[in-house]
């Protein structure tokens, strides 16, 4: 009798994951869901990357060699949609799932069943989106910005595009609600808001951005849908509508979206730099305020994507000034990272290398962003390869490098083993060399006058295009090393709870690998470990 009770008790206390496919289909565990998000995002990264390589192959030399222009446009459109909504955003949600409960000392996400649902919507959404490649008329080819009237020329894929965007939005909104509720309610009592780690802070602010703008995108694409099928004329001039209005609505979503993809990256870097500098983050509170300022400003700069649509001078001036202002809090973040490193005792493991490259290369993307804010120059840069260079600098060695840094940083915590450090470093160096080889020449192409989204170009652009294509192939192949690192992730030495020499924070107080359930009770730990920010320590 007593044994049976003990057994039941045991089973209740230490129940692990279900077995087989049921574990993944029905799981409500934040670590399982985090893993699924990350794996999904990696798959999408490779699919979107393959499309990028189709684009770069066609653009390697002048003339059309491999694809027709209509398919080329499908590739640029699908590459962007998949990378933005399928790779970068889910990767950060995956990291949030894994790390936020562990960083705030909470047992799980606040809304575990919704968590499961918000993940499982994604494979459906992208299944639908990818299936459009096989439909009459092909996949959407109007660019990820879906500007009317061109987008209304999409073939059978059109309603599927709209529906899949709705689903992605639904997933993001649920994910955002979950993250907000978790951060507000699930913190261990001693962790006040201002004490929260930067990754948690940046995600809290990001989640509010998502909540604010994903419904706006849903509204915009719904209006496209009714324009196409139900006789409305929101965006059709012939019926009294305004094609430019779509752009205003889209970029009211689109600009905060840019920060949705970079703020969590700031959070990741703000975790990694202190660890490997063995020094607390400089200006933690200033970083929080800077992040909040960027988020606020992100709502009042959208028209800088549209300086060539023909706006009143006063509007152009306002959006130029507001856009330039973003450089201030962004600068504060970069300066604080440098101050964090200053007089530290740095070591250069793979996560640190990726974080350092992030600071260098994201800053280059920030510089071209500042140049783009200057309206007369922007009129030249707009829709040229200069813009392509700019946003790839902030997204690839920006967001993607931060995601890589985060994966290497927390991988030993997830698997309980150190990954192959040599392979990690090779992955880093090849990625860094090739990413610059790919995207740096695009600045020159844009300044020389090459428009974006063209399948073929004048011969004067041939040289740098070939360089960029060689870089892209190299970058793509280098990512296979990352797969190797993941496949061999459990073969390395057993990781300690702290994993890294200078790691501070609650996630490093639990064993490696992190048990299936962590922080079932309010956590009691040495405050100096838990709250590196705490000024009383």
């Amino acid at each position, binding site marked *: 009798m007593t044994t049976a009770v003990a057994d039941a008790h045991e089973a209740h206390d230490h129940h692990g994951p279900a077995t087989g496919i049921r574990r993944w289909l029905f799981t409500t565990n934040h670590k399982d869901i985090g893993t699924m998000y990350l794996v999904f995002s990696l798959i999408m990264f490779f699919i979107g990357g393959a499309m990028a390589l189709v684009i770069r192959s066609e653009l390697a030399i002048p003339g059309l060699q491999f694809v027709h222009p209509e398919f080329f446009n499908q590739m640029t459109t699908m590459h962007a949609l998949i990378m933005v909504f399928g790779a970068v955003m889910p990767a950060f949600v995956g990291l949030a799932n894994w790390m936020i409960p562990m960083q705030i000392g909470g047992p799980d996400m606040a809304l575990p069943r919704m968590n499961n649902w918000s993940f499982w919507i994604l494979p459906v959404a992208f299944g639908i989106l990818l299936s459009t490649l096989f439909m009459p008329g092909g996949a959407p080819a109007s660019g990820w910005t879906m500007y009317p009237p061109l987008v209304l020329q999409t073939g059978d894929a059109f309603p599927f595009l709209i529906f899949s965007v709705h689903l992605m939005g639904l997933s993001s909104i649920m994910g955002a609600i979950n993250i907000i509720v978790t951060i507000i309610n699930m913190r261990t009592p001693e962790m006040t808001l201002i004490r929260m780690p930067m990754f948690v802070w940046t995600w809290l602010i990001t989640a509010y951005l998502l909540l604010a703008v994903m419904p706006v995108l849903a509204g915009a694409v719904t209006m496209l849908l009714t324009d196409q099928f139900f006789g409305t004329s929101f965006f059709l001039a012939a019926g009294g509508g305004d094609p430019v209005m779509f752009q205003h609505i889209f970029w009211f979503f689109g600009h905060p979206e840019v920060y949705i993809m970079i703020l969590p990256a700031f959070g990741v870097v703000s975790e990694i730099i202190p660890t490997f500098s063995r020094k607390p983050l400089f*200006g933690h509170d200033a970083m929080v305020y800077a992040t909040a300022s960027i988020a606020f400003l992100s709502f009042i700069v959208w028209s800088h994507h549209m300086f060539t649509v023909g706006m009143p001078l006063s509007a152009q001036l306002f959006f130029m000034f507001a856009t330039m202002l973003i450089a201030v809090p962004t*600068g504060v973040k970069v*300066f604080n990272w440098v101050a964090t490193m200053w*007089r530290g005792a*740095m070591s250069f493991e793979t996560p640190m290398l990726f974080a350092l490259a992030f600071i260098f290369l994201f800053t280059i993307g920030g510089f071209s962003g500042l140049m783009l804010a200057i309206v*007369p120059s922007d009129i*030249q840069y707009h829709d040229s390869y200069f813009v392509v260079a700019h946003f790839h600098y902030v997204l690839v060695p920006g967001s993607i490098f931060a995601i890589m840094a985060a994966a290497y940083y927390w991988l030993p915590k997830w698997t309980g083993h150190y990954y192959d450090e040599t392979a990690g470093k090779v992955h880093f160096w090849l990625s860094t060399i090739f990413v610059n080889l790919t995207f740096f020449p695009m600045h020159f192409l844009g300044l020389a006058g090459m428009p974006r989204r063209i399948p073929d170009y004048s011969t004067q652009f041939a*040289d740098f295009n070939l360089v960029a294509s060689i870089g892209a192939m190299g970058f793509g192949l280098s990512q296979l090393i990352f797969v190797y690192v993941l496949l061999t992730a459990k073969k390395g030495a057993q990781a300690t709870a702290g994993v890294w020499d200078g790691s501070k924070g609650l996630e490093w107080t639990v064993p490696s690998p992190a048990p299936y359930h962590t922080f079932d009770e309010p956590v009691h730990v040495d405050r100096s470990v838990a709250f590196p920010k705490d000024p009383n320590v």
Partner: protein
Amino acid sequence: MIRNISTGLLGLAWATAANADWQLNMPRGVTELSAETYELHMMAFWVCTAIGLLVFGAMIISLLLHRKSKGVAAAQFRHSTGVEILWTAIPVLILLAMAVPAARTMIKLEDSRNPDLTIVVTGYQWKWHYRYQDQDLAFYSSLARPSLEARQKNSGIDPFDVENYLRDVDRPLVVPVGAKVRVLLTSNDVLHAWWVPDFAIKKDAIPGMVNEMWFQALKVGTYRGQCAELCGKDHGYMPVVVEVVEAEAFNEWVAANGGVTTRTFADNR
């Protein structure tokens, strides 16, 4: 194709600064405003370079000196309100200094009053239509034949053998040098954008709307650009070519094409 690749690789191997194809920077252009735009671009570039040198310099010094392998002990300082205020305030001042000249140029860009010549440009999938408002002269301008043939998939024609590949048209826009040309821009179907880098003007052609911009080319020559707003499958194949000619030659051209010549142009540079 093999030949193309080898041509490209050869070009890569023999790259020199003298090779004009490796163009690095924005053209200075041939209008007053294109020169101003170029100056603004270079100003922003040098400001960014200076800030970059400071920030990256500090980072590199730190990366070289403050390494664990050098046996240094990490300092533990963590905030300084004074420093935060300083590096918030200084960038604001730099930005103000950049914004003022930019605003000055923007005001000029918007001032299209008193044009000498007005041209209505209409975007079509995938060609341009030009109408000279007062000369009663109109025509379409599409990709030139040699480019059209070479651009077909696996056409067997090496683009390097085609003069101005993809940047040549059957009938270019012709304007007199020194004239203030007002461009009224619209579209017949989807969005397009009319761009000539040497004039530093680009604006969207939007169905149902008329956009306005202007240029005053100060140098005779042929200037080439392209549609800059994705407009469907042949977006890459609707170039813009503008021939800037002497006023006298323009008058002759209008007459030769059956346009109204009540107004003749004189060089008013």
